[in-house]
């Protein structure tokens, strides 16, 4: 006897409507002629034209991407090191404190991370004269700090799953520790490192609160620009910007999904072939 769970399916439908109706509404209203962002006044693409000719938006996007690229890369290096350390070096001095420092930023409210970083930068400027002005460097430092722990979480989870015996075998065969790391550990956990980087990149690209505390004059990232506009109410050009974002992200996710799917299928095929040739 197999009953169709109608209740579950209707909640699923409701849930996905809940997820996507506001986004669809935003897309539809981005083509609105009217200045009043929520009243329909005919079809128009003028908000896209005004958006694309807005130099502020371009500059803000460029700054956001630069910060995200640099901070995600450094966060991935530091976060991977921390993940390896926690998974492989089970005993070292100060491990408890280290574990705490890696977990705490995950649950720290962004406001507190923001004001504590700002206090640090102001007090450091007072004590040692650096940073003289807040901006690109201070934003990047703050982003690295709070996104590296996400990389650590991803890498650590992957390290715990991976087979340690291979590393030990390499050691027994006379490999130096750094060779083991380079030739065996890093290639095994590479997918985790990649997804950690992507996570750090999007976290940095998306952040408003911590950026708003650590920025200085003249350094407006794209989320800060949106934030300052949105605080004043709904404006049609933000609808256009949101539509473009959804389009880019959607395409990216679909392409990534297809590539991963194909890689997975190839891997399964290879495994089957390998088994067959063993017979």
């Amino acid at each position: 006897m197999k009953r169709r769970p109608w209740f579950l399916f209707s909640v699923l439908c409701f849930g996905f409507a809940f997820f996507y109706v506001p986004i669809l509404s935003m897309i539809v209203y981005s083509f609105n002629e009217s200045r009043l962002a929520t009243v329909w006044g005919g079809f128009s693409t003028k908000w896209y034209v005004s958006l694309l000719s807005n130099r502020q938006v371009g500059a803000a996007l460029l700054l956001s991407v630069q910060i995200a690229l640099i901070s995600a890369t450094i966060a991935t290096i530091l976060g991977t090191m921390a993940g390896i350390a926690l998974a492989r070096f089970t005993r070292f001095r100060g491990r408890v404190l280290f574990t705490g420092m890696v977990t705490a930023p995950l649950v720290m409210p962004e406001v507190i991370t923001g004001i504590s970083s700002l206090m640090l930068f102001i007090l450091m400027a007072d004590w040692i004269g650096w940073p003289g002005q807040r901006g690109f460097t201070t934003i990047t430092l703050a982003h690295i700090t709070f996104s590296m722990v996400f990389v650590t979480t991803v890498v650590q989870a992957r390290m715990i799953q991976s087979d340690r015996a291979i590393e030990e075998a390499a050691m027994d065969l006379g490999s130096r520790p750094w060779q083991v790391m380079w030739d065996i550990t890093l290639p095994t956990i590479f997918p985790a490192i990649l997804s950690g980087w992507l996570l750090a990149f999007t976290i940095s690209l998306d952040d408003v609160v911590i950026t708003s505390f650590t920025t200085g004059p003249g350094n407006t990232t794209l989320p800060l620009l949106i934030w300052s506009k949105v605080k004043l109410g709904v404006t049609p050009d933000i609808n256009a910007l949101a539509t473009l974002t959804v389009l880019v992200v959607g395409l990216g996710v679909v392409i990534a999904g297809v590539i991963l799917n194909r890689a997975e299928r190839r891997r399964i095929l290879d495994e089957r072939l390998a088994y067959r040739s063993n017979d």
Partner: protein
Amino acid sequence: MRARLSHWFNKRGWSDLIIGLPYVWLALLFLLPFLIVLAMSLATRTPTAPPFGYGGENPILNFNGYARLFTDDLYIRAFLTSLGNAAVATILCLLIGFPMALGLTRVSKGWRNILLMLVILPFWTSFLLRVYAWMGMMGRNSWFNQLLTDGWNWLTPEGWAVTSLPLMHSNFAVVLVMVYTYLPFMILPLYASLERLDPALDEAAMDLGTRPFGVFRDVTLPQSIPGIVAGGLLVFIPAAGELVIPTLVGDAASPMIGRVISDEFSSARDWPMASSVAVALLVIMVIPTMLYSRYQARADGAGGQP
């Protein structure tokens, strides 16, 4: 010399480097700022720049900030509003997210991957824009507000008729947007724990004559408690300290705690008070987190499922 250096590097230096670099980074840029907040919460506010005094003619330890937390109405209300909104949002996420996660385990494999991708997709779009989408929906002239208004006028007696509903700038709006932005955090861990359940258990219970609701209550629900706890914390903790959502759609007359911290710091330039509120918020959040890790340690110790 070189040989000794390389010997040291292979023996100790290598692991020291791997541990040391992230250690020093986090100590300088996470632990130190946190200690500054702790120290600042006991400092005295002064009209200098930076606006605090410590020692000298000021008391070395000033507990005024903490005392005000319990005497000043503003802070008590802000804490209650935050915890209340976060709790309601968490419960609503659970009520919507649990059937959705369970539904996801019941669809065919091809559909499941597409639907899971659709759950994750909003994650990758900007958080700010997702909040903004609801600002457009809730405004007084929007189609959504008009739809709800028509429903309201139809349901209630004629004397209560309104031209639009005051959805924006209310706790209702805050909770709605929180549920919207945090629902994936609830669905994903729930799905992960429900997916691992053995359907044979359901069938066994059914064969023994249990009704579908009984199967859910006695078989499915108890096994999914780890997912419920994980999802609940993933929603509750960020919701309680939220700053963006209450600023954009919340009621300025009853601010949430994140807003209070930010205002004390930026507008009032009262660093010690902002720090006291921040420390209090952390204490409140640390308790559920610690309960969770104890719970998890016990679950791991029991060593149930592989």
